[in-house]
């Protein structure tokens, strides 16, 4: 047993933080929170606090990266040194670089990059406080920042993880569930289109468990999608 591991994860059908297995943590989304960025969003999701900013379409530096037929989308996921338990050294580590890549690939399918050839659309995601699920929170925030910047998109991209703790499939792992649980499955989708834009997984799913967790994660995405739309409406009004 690792230090700090709880004996049980679910007691009387309730998780350690009181949630039911299929319940999300509290999510709060605010759009347009920064002045200098072309678009921005702030997301609080459980204990996560994440800021995203979008710049673009703008000139590409260095120039040789520009594409004649479309904009390049670039995503940078980064964690503030004080966002985690043990201070993180500033600068990108290997984990951040991987997450930046899968985040870009989670968003790319919805952005009409072909409308802005030879330009760059840059998205910066800053984790100010981390508490399990930062990559999903980041994707949700990034998607809102793109929308706030007026970048044409087919749809928003919600993201949510499911996982396995104490042998049970649950939605949206908490910190302790993430650290000591048996599996984590973050998923991002294009709602209404049956398109999965991100799926990663680590841990152990027996036959059957994967499918159950996957469907739960997609349901979680749909709940997040509603909150995303609500936040846009709140900002821009809406029909």
């Amino acid at each position, binding site marked *: 047993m*690792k*230090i*700090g591991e709880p004996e049980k994860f679910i007691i009387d059908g309730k998780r350690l933080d009181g949630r039911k297995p299929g319940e999300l943590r509290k999510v709060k989304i605010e759009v347009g929170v920064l002045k200098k960025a072309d678009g921005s969003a702030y997301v609080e999701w459980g204990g996560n606090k994440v800021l995203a900013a979008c710049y673009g379409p703008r000139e590409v530096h260095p120039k040789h990266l520009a*594409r004649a037929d479309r904009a390049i989308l670039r995503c940078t996921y980064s964690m503030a040194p004080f966002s985690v338990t043990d201070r993180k050294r500033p600068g990108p580590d*290997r*984990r951040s*670089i*991987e997450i*930046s*890549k*899968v985040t870009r*690939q989670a968003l*790319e*399918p919805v952005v009409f990059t072909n409308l802005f050839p030879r330009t760059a659309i840059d998205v910066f995601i800053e984790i100010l406080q981390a508490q399990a699920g930062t990559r999903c929170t980041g994707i949700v925030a990034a998607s809102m920042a793109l929308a706030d910047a007026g970048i044409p998109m087919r749809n928003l991209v919600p993201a949510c993880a499911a996982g396995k703790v104490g042998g049970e499939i649950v939605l949206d792992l908490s910190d302790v569930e993430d650290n000591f649980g048996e599996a984590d*499955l973050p998923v991002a989708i*294009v709602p209404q289109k*049956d*398109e*999965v*834009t*991100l*799926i*990663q*997984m*680590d*841990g*152990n*799913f*027996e*036959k059957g468990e*994967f*499918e159950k967790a*996957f*469907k739960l994660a*997609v349901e979680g995405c749909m709940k997040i999608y509603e909150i995303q739309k609500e936040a846009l409406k709140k900002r821009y009004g809406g029909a």
Partner: protein
Amino acid sequence: MFDIVADIKKDFIVNLLRSKKRVDNRAFDEYRPIVVEPGVSEKAEGSSLVKIGNTQVMVGVKLAIGEPFSDMPDLGVMMTNAELNPLASPRFEKGPPDEDTIELSRVVDRVIRESKCIELEKLCITEGEEVWIVFIDAHILDYDGNLFDATALGAISALRNTRFPKVEDGRIIYSEKTDKKLPVVDRPVETTFAKIGKDIVLDPVLDEELVLDARITIGTNEKGDICAMQKGGDGTFTQEEIIDLVNKSREKSEELRKLV
């Protein structure tokens, strides 16, 4: 995975697939010929050379003694690193690891780590002070697509082939290997599928990788449990496709596992 080829090439491959053919005439769910040669190095504590078609990857395992992580004081440590050597492809460049290199390292690390195939608790020497560190280093030698599966296969093959060196007064005598094997209790592998247009193929060759829309790598252990997964590419999968591929992966994994 790494570059754009002309739309023409993409059209050609998509059309070929639409008529149920691949550039190298394989079935959609067929691996290229695979060769696994364990024990190719005397300097490494474990090693393996894997060829999947023209793709060649060499994996070496080095053991060292060092400190455990402070939150896991009684467990050995494992580290996985891959190098996309410019020797292996005109597409690879010198310099610090880029996002593709890092993704490869981490996805291979994931299946080894999460399958718990190495009994890390047996690698503790003195709790909180000294444990064995397992360095898994993958060197890409010839790149013709599907590095994930080749590297993961090389890693588990090299690990199963790893023997401890002699230790005298707390000092490792690397020149003398013992008979004691690294405690490896599972044979996790990874299988990778590429979606090109509407078709999905196993084990994409480089030409297919260059035009793919989406990619998925699925790692399983001997029991058939899923241990690792990674989607790539700028396109998408449907939910059904993913569930389908997870099942297909279980099947194809057995073929790979026989080789190690």
